[in-house]
């Protein structure tokens, strides 16, 4: 059905070919999964099937790509529209019309299908994808999963033989992703459509794939049945890695297959203790939010949420799309609307309060009155504040001016920052009394209290080069020049002359993270950071976040990625309909949940094992 014969693709202006001598044959009716690191050429391969490469994107294509007997050299994409349907990464960007029904009919209109046939096919497609009750809805009001299904439906009405999907589930929560994958597998099984799908989160799709294509990144292609390809692949879904670790043969691809083989492993692990993801005990409260309500007109996005963030912990915020996660994060930062409720952010910041548990009990300083310790206040108006991470912070600035010698005793080395422990039993009362509300102190101070990396990090970047962005960040945060560049160097390896729009997803995330970290906020909020990151980039990202938490920050990650949560988070907060539904340690919240449990937990249930690394550590 799809045949690549020694295909090479080189874009104009680049010296390295993206694809080199790629040959593959995809027979009819197979579900073919395409995997590879970001930038390894997955999108190029997918677009070459359709003819978008080279007709639309430019570049040089050598070799031959044939789809259903048609050669893409002679057929531009519009001539292939009746055999190939392409669904891009963001379905909303590909919608031409206003409502679902018209969108479904659009492709057929272009192909001059007779009106009676059009009508029939629209009805069939609505039923096939389960979107029949959405037919009159405007496209912008649909949820992510519904939009993805409408996008698939809109190319399906032309009855293509081949369906090409570019990361269909990256933006979706686990349940919506399952719906989309179920629809796709139904197409493969019932209609015999050949599906070629690129996906980063392999764990969702591998059980259903008939064939796997792996792009190692040097332009070549590895092709074969999933078990064979994954056995040697550098990155693999957790079930495969567990299989490799435990030496299972044949390598299981789905949770069900793995459970059948998991008996001996469970016995071996029965007496080992389950390690916790983080080694530090959470410290002082850095952010205290009570009764946060966010309203957009009549719609209530966040309905009275209480949240407390402690130094040194990583909190995962989970919930389906539309449950209010983003609204909550923006309201906590202060840049988003907050109808009512209070937020107090403050605290000693990094390198400080992690060791507060063993501080001298006499070191408490009462808030209010003659508050001598500027360290509680997080921003720079008070010259005694010591929230800056690193740097040559004058140790003397922390000392309470009432010269209480015991007030600055800290265990653990040259720690310049004192954390304030209230004498009361409520650990949050100190930050409540002395912390600031990010929404009222102004943007410049707010970003030193709470840093937020939004869902589309590119919104923050507007300058010509990475180096210019770093200089602007230094200026905006009032830090010495070079701070941001130093932080960026730790996070990613970027050429400072690159234009920010030319960066890959992971690199852009690293840049924006560095920009926000320049202000050294004690609390860091990340909104869906791992969308579009492959396994390797996710692992590096998790290590970075662990490092930030170890410095004494509180980090919140709002995400759908169950495996990331299992590997990274100490605590999980689940939201639904604007309220907090569950809030507790990771193992307690995710293990028994059908939607949020990681694969390792599902395989080794009911034991609370979350990651392959934990199992590996226990077996040693």
């Amino acid at each position: 059905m799809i045949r690549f014969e020694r295909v090479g693709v080189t874009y104009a202006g680049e010296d390295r070919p993206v694809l080199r001598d790629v040959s593959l044959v995809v027979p009819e009716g197979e579900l073919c999964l395409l995997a590879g690191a970001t930038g390894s050429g997955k999108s190029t391969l997918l677009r070459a099937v359709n003819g978008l490469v080279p007709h639309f994107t430019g570049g040089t294509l050598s070799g031959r790509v044939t789809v259903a007997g048609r050669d893409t050299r002679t057929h531009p994409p519009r001539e292939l529209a009746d055999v190939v349907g392409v669904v891009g990464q963001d379905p909303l960007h590909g919608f031409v019309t206003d409502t679902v029904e018209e969108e479904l009919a659009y492709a057929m209109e272009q192909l001059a299908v007779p009106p009676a046939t059009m009508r029939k096919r629209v009805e069939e497609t609505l039923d096939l994808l389960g979107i029949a009750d959405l037919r009159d809805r405007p496209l912008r009001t649909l949820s992510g999963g519904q939009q993805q299904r409408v996008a698939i439906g809109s190319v399906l009405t032309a009855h293509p033989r081949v369906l090409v999907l570019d990361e269909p589930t990256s933006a979706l929560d686990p349940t919506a992703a399952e719906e989309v994958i179920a629809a796709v597998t139904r197409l493969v099984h019932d209609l015999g459509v050949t599906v070629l799908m690129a996906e980063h989160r392999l764990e969702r799709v591998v059980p259903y794939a008939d064939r796997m294509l792996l792009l190692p990144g040097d332009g070549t292609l590895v092709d074969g049945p999933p078990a064979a390809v994954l056995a040697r692949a550098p990155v693999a879904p957790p079930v495969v890695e567990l299989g490799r670790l435990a030496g299972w043969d044949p390598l299981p691809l789905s949770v069900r297959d793995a459970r059948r083989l998991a008996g001996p492993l469970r016995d071996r692990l029965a007496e080992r203790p389950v390690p916790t993801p983080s080694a530090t005990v959470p410290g002082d409260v850095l952010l205290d939010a009570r009764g946060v309500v966010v309203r957009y007109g009549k719609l209530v996005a966040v309905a009275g949420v209480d949240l407390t963030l402690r130094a040194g912990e990583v909190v995962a915020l989970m919930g389906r799309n539309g449950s209010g996660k983003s609204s909550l994060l923006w309201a906590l930062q202060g840049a988003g609307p907050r109808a009512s409720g209070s937020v107090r952010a403050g605290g000693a910041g990094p390198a400080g309060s992690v060791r507060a548990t063993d501080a001298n009990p006499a070191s408490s300083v009462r808030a209010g009155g003659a508050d001598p310790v500027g360290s509680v206040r997080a921003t720079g108006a008070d010259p005694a504040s010591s929230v800056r991470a690193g740097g040559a912070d004058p140790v003397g600035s922390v000392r309470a001016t009432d010269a209480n010698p015991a007030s600055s005793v800290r265990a653990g080395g040259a720690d310049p920052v004192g954390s304030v422990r209230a004498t009361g039993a409520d650990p949050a009362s100190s930050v409540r009394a002395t912390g600031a509300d990010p929404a009222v102190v102004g943007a410049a101070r707010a970003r030193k209290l709470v840093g937020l990396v939004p869902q589309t990090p590119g919104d923050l970047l507007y300058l010509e080069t990475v180096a210019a962005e770093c200089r602007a960040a230094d200026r905006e945060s009032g830090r010495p020049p070079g701070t941001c560049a130093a932080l960026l160097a730790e996070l990613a390896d970027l050429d400072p002359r690159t234009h920010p729009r030319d960066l890959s997803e992971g690199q852009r995330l690293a840049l924006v993270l560095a920009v926000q970290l320049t202000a050294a906020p004690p609390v860091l909020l990340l909104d869906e950071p791992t969308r579009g990151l492959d396994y390797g980039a996710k692992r590096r990202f998790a290590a970075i976040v662990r490092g930030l938490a170890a410095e004494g920050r509180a980090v919140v990650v709002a995400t759908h990625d169950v495996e990331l949560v299992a590997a990274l988070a100490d605590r999980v907060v689940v939201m639904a309909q604007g309220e907090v539904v569950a809030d507790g340690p990771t193992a307690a919240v995710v293990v028994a949940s059908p939607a949020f449990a990681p694969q390792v937990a599902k395989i080794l249930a009911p034991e609370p094992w979350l990651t392959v690394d934990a199992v590996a550590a226990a077996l040693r």
Partner: protein
Amino acid sequence: MRHLRRTLHPAAWWLWALGLATAASRTTNPVLLALLAAAACFVVVRRRGDAPWALAFRLYVVLAGIVVASRVLFRVVFGGGGGEVVLVTLPELPLPAVAAGIRLFGPVTAEELLSGLYDGLRLATMLLCLGAANALANPKRLLKAVPAALYEAGTAVVVALSVAPQLAESVLRVRRARRLRGGDGRGIRALRAILLPVLADALDRSLALAAAMDSRGYARTGTASQTRPPAGRPAPTDTRTGTAGTGPHPDGHRDPTPTSVPTDNRPSTTDSTTPSPTLTPGTDPRRDPTAGGVRQDHAADGGQHHHPAEDVLRGRQVGELRHGHPADDARHGHPTDNLRHGHPTDDLRHGHPADDLRHGHPARHGRPADDARHGRPAGGVLVVGGLLGVCVGAYGLLDATTPRVIGLPVLAAGLAVAAAGLAAGARAVVRTRYRADRWAAPEVAVAACGIGAGALLFVTASVDPAALYPSLSPLGWPTLTALPAAAAVLATLPAWLAPPAPVAAR
């Protein structure tokens, strides 16, 4: 008259509304104008649907009220006090000598007030008629009903209309993100910080949209779906340089706008037996989105037309086409339209016996592709010329002072030329329309009511002009005679003649 609920063809409502607006422009009789406005409101209330655009009618009513009030106020302030019946005398404000001809306030006469009222009422009624058309006929549906020759322009407008709210959303998102960076919100730097991400976003989005539309077959010129490789096919290992561009990866990189690079400049490519499109090598459009965009269109066309292997391919396949009638649904009433090997299609009365689920042979109507290439410019010229003629003719018709020859004859000639141009352009286009609005008896009736109302007032203008322009000096009561009354009644008839709008299922 019991009708099934359905939406009327948007052109019918617009014709009705334009007829009414023409009628209103011909008179200043307040009674008649009020009747016409009431007729429009009545029809809207009875026949509009629940959609959000229908509920905007009250805005038009408010706007009409504002128009009337402002006209009257204008006369009160700047009136000049001509006339005899003085209602009230306001203190006059003195103006400097340079503005000696203008008088502020002063005595307010009934004639001035009434004259302002009549003018304002006329304008307000015309506004209300147009608002009624907007409320009754979905504007986007009107764009869908655009004739096939103007399809690309219509598509551009539809896409622009849906992009505008996305742009607004983008601006809000970026402004919110500015706060995250400390939001030093003044001056050029802030403007730049908002504009650049928004524009970059818009550009990315438009490229993604263009790729999606291209993948779904937009602007096909009608090659058949089956493929038989022509004799003399080049060997498989050839290099084909497509519309070469600077664009790096779609994998998260920017700017796949194409330029063209002649193959002889690239030492690393193998020889191609097929010439690449001969376009001028472009400058680096990496940071110049507009240049790239324009070149892309040419390149896409060029890539298709100059490729001899393609031409061979297309030529052979085209020979197998049936030279059917154009698929343009705008010309309704031709049962032989949309023929496919002799099977009448159009609506659900006849099943489609040859419908094939899996083998995907979409119908190919219309002339071969080379006619498509030649037919388009001629059709465009005719359409533009015809529309100019329509404009001139409409102006002549509506303005009572122009000589009669510029009115109706030029309008008719312009319409004929435009129709010819549309027909010529339509033959080049190969697409069908999903659930197209049909033009049936209620549509004809509604349009006839509007046009009839306008025509009646034209007749009255030549027979009995005094009824249309009540005199202001001497002041006289406005009268309502038979013909204008008949026109008002005719304008109200669509409230019953048109079928009720469908209710949205909730």
